[in-house]
């Protein structure tokens, strides 16, 4: 087990006041809150900060933690000294704190286990049956998955009780079939894959809300898909047949002569497949080649002479 430096995690000095600790916690909690944060491993960070705050906000726990001494380094192998907590009585459960699905071994070796079981509703051990909780998670899939259908491995952090009855968080990997034609906001319900039932009750369901990976050159609106397609000026002016990537593969697209930037070409039925498939819209853009040598500059000069062209004519200047 490794020693954790809760002051370092919170970014406060060892003699920080309770107000300073609260302020540091609030700032970090907003930064790493899994519902808000875009940081990588926000969830793990949030959990770590929550654990540090659980100790430092409580004068009893903080005094006991300080008493361990300052010779420890973060990450150092740690065993609590015998009788270290003599004279302390840690009151109260984790009610009101973040539902983090259990703290680290380090925390539990100091303050005991099952901290977060206290105060949770519906966890009484009396002999009645109760259906397990439904769990919800978001999954990011590729747009191509919706065109072709796919099987994706999805890893969820789940809290569960281990053999000795303590709450542990562990990753759970599921292989899930992503049905063809799935759209943003739709959910996949996996019966019986949620929380375990109590007293022999049936397990809850797992709901996966689907979103598309934003790192893609496609934009999706409902079942329609948009793609910005850069063209050379001569392709737009003279017309051309160009290769266009689509989620279903590369297609040849005929660009009509005289196309302007911003014009949309609709490829009917090439959006997300469904009973009524969406359309693929190719939004034309014009990319300008740089004039980098004398020859190329002459071409632009020749255009300037040949075209009486004022692109700002609509602005009356």
């Amino acid at each position, binding site marked *: 087990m490794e020693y954790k430096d809760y002051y370092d995690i919170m970014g406060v000095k060892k003699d920080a006041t309770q107000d300073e600790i609260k302020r540091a916690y609030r700032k970090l909690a907003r930064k790493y*809150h899994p519902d808000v944060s875009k940081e990588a491993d926000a969830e793990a960070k949030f959990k770590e900060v929550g654990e540090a705050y659980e100790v430092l906000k409580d004068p009893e726990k903080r005094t006991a933690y300080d008493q361990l001494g300052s010779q420890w380094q973060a990450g150092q192998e740690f065993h609590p000294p015998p009788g270290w907590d003599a004279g302390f009585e840690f009151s109260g459960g984790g009610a009101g704190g973040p539902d983090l699905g259990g703290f680290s071994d380090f925390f539990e070796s100091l303050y005991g286990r099952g901290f977060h079981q206290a105060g949770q509703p519906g966890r009484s051990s009396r002999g009645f049956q109760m259906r397990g909780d439904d769990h*919800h998670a978001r999954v990011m899939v590729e747009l191509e998955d919706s065109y072709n259908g796919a099987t994706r491995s999805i890893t969820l952090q789940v809290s569960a009780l281990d053999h000795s009855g303590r709450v542990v968080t562990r990753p759970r990997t599921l292989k*899930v*079939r992503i049905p063809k034609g799935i759209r943003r906001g739709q*959910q996949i319900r996996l019966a019986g894959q949620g929380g375990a039932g109590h007293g022999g009750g049936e397990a809850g369901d797992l709901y996966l809300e689907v979103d598309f990976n934003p790192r893609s050159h496609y*934009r999706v609106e409902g079942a329609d898909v948009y793609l910005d397609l850069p063209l050379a000026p001569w392709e737009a002016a003279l017309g051309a047949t160009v290769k266009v990537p689509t989620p279903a593969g590369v297609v040849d697209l005929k660009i009509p002569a005289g196309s302007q930037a911003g014009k949309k070409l609709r490829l009917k039925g090439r959006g997300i497949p469904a009973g009524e498939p969406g359309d693929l819209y190719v939004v034309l853009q014009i990319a300008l080649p740089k004039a980098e040598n004398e020859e190329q500059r002459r071409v632009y000069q020749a255009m300037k002479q040949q075209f009486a062209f004022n692109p700002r004519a609509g602005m009356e200047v």
Partner: protein
Amino acid sequence: MAEHKTLRGQLIEAETLISVDELCRHCTVRVEEVITFVQEGILDPSDNEVVPEKADSWQFHISSVRRVRTAVHLQRDLGVNLAGAALALELLDRIAELEKA
């Protein structure tokens, strides 16, 4: 805990409506809390009858589940009140809108 079996789920449309009881069960909240969310403007019942006396017959889009859970988490973890959570939700919506464009 790797599971090698491929799971096939039931597809639920984004437009699917759920009852107020189902919403409570999915989010582990009480009807009274749902009523406060509606009164704060965080949630819109689909039939637009927002009087609390009609709460039993309210229906919500399935997307409300995530909204309620986020609102609950924000209040519990960040110490914001309901109005603060509502503001955060609206800003999160706006960020999502902007990122889509």
